[in-house]
């Protein structure tokens, strides 16, 4: 029992942090945090960065990196809105977005794995490329998608279950479950872990490292496309800077969640809880009556403190 608790100390710590923050917010502004409305708002926005963080967690466990996902979002979202508007079928638009996302991810994968450019450099490049391509193709104009609000596809992806639970939360949880199974219970996840741990070892142990790494970038592309379509539908709008605001939040959520920046280790549960913590902070600060200027400070404080705690916890153990 004791060892089980010890093994899950990271997860428990995170849950405690989340519970502590929520209690603090409830204490400071009960009129906000004792009502369903704020949680519905959380459930309608937090799933987007969470989805991205889930995809990126797998990449980081494999020792890779992707800075281009905000731009993959914007180009996939553009495919979605163009095809959906042209054919009148958001479903076709969705497939177009997935194809675009997968293609962009494949490009990243090939540049990193075949050509051998380090992922962080390659994806800085592709990030500029796709952002530029989409503004160019859209002539810099936002796309109004209000007419998709009444479609079944909208209701399936971002509708409100029982008239209050945002569907994106359900999808996000399903993806989280799938990724948890992949990382912890599937041979794919096992390959990912060994690649991140030491790619030489993985090769010697017969892991098809190239295939797995390329697949990871493609998965990240698909996830970005999914997130983008959901954001487009939720906001009934596509705009050329879509996704840019997610970059830091997503990284903050992953590392707050306890995934190692060195690869080889990562936690899906941690990423989900990390995303929730990052996602609720600003609302809590605002409703407590503090000005928005506090948000960054608190973000920074929470991240630095928790990451330092991890470092301490792990170094004591490795000794």
């Amino acid at each position, binding site marked *: 029992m004791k060892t089980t608790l010890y093994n899950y100390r990271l997860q428990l710590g995170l849950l405690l942090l989340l519970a502590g923050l929520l209690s603090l917010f409830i204490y400071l502004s009960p009129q906000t945090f004792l009502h369903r409305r704020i949680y519905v708002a959380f459930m309608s926005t937090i799933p987007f960065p969470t989805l991205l963080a889930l995809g990126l967690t797998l990449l980081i466990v494999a020792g890779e990196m992707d800075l281009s996902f905000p731009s993959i979002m914007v180009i996939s979202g553009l495919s979605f809105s163009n095809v959906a508007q042209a054919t009148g079928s958001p479903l076709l638009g969705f497939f177009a977005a997935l194809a675009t996302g997968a293609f962009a991810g494949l490009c990243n994968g090939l540049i990193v794995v075949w050509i051998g450019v380090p992922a962080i450099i390659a994806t800085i490049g592709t990030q500029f490329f796709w952002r530029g391509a989409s503004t160019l193709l859209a002539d810099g104009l936002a796309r*109004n998608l209000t007419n998709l609000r009444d479609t079944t596809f909208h209701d399936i992806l971002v509708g409100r279950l029982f008239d209050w639970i945002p569907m994106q939360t359900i999808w996000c949880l399903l993806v989280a479950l799938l990724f948890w199974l992949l990382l912890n219970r599937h041979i794919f996840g096992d390959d990912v872990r060994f690649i991140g741990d030491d790619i030489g070892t993985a090769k010697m142990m017969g892991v098809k490292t190239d295939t797995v790494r390329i697949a990871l970038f493609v998965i990240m592309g698909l996830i970005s496309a999914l997130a983008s379509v959901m954001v487009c539908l939720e906001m009934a709008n596509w705009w050329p*800077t879509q996704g840019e605001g997610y970059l830091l939040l997503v990284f903050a959520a992953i590392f707050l969640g306890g995934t190692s920046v060195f690869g080889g280790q990562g936690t899906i549960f941690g990423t989900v809880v990390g995303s929730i913590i990052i996602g609720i902070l600003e609302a809590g600060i605002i409703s407590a009556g503090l000005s928005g200027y506090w948000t960054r400070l608190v973000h920074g404080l929470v991240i630095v403190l928790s990451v330092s705690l991890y470092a301490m916890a792990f170094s004591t153990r490795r000794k």
Partner: protein
Amino acid sequence: MIGKKTGLLMALLAVCMLSSTVLAKDTLQQSGKGIKIWFDTGGPVGETYNTIVQHGAEQAAADLGCDIEFMYSDWSPQKMLENFQKALAAGPDGIVVMGHPGDDAYAPFIKEAVDKGIIVSSSDTELPNLMEKYQASGFGYAGVSNYARGKALATEAVNRFGLKKGDRALVWGLKSQPTRGLSSKALIETLENSGLTVDYMEISPEIDKDASLGTPVITAYLSSNPDCDIVIMDHGALTAQLENFFRAAGIGPDEIIGAGFSLSPATASAIKAGYVDLVGDGQPYLQGYLPVLQIVLTKRFGFSGLEIETGGGFIHTANIDLIAPLAEKAIR
């Protein structure tokens, strides 16, 4: 002997040449022919707002027949200064700047440009000192000063909706930014002078880029302050998301007054749906068109710089049907 056909052809040619010279004498030339202008649109490539400015400038260049080169500064004052130096090096006839870096930062560069005989004019943000100094050499301004647009929107809102002492307003803006923040400051001051209680929130850099992230924040605010009567977004993209924000916070159309700036397609449909009630329009198209026109006029005829206030436009349920189609094309 010259063949009959050839003779006819030569005759025709002669008539053509003659008539074209005669016609040219009667027609005025395009005033901007041969004039080269560099234009800093201020924002990033493709942002809604500066695309409208760019469209205005492009139209002016097409109307006047001058050459135009666009620069993009991602709304960064530093980059605007760099772009100015780049333009200076190219030695065009005129340069249009967005005034964000301010008088002092621009002063040495604009002096250099004027000394070289380059006409500089400003758009969007005022540069009062430089204006005073160089107006005679063609330094002009077309735009809405930030303070003026904030004041105008707040005044219009108070009058139009009969806001009174004790009513509560939320202003969500970028007060911490130099110059740009004056708009939020004016909104707050004007509303407070009318006796309203004003809450101010600063837009985080993330929400600045991805308005969707603002949903929990505004929901939290509205839950904590259920007595709020009017929400003013001092930000174009957030204005466009007001409908989504209200929906998420469980607030129906016309329950709370929504106001903001710049008319995007999403804002237009939110006005029709009743979630947004008043939008201040700085008419950015004119801020692109007029500086180009003015530089051409100064270059050709030596006119002094013009100071033009492009603001004062408001969009609401009554006039949205006229303006919405133009917004789709990034003209309004």
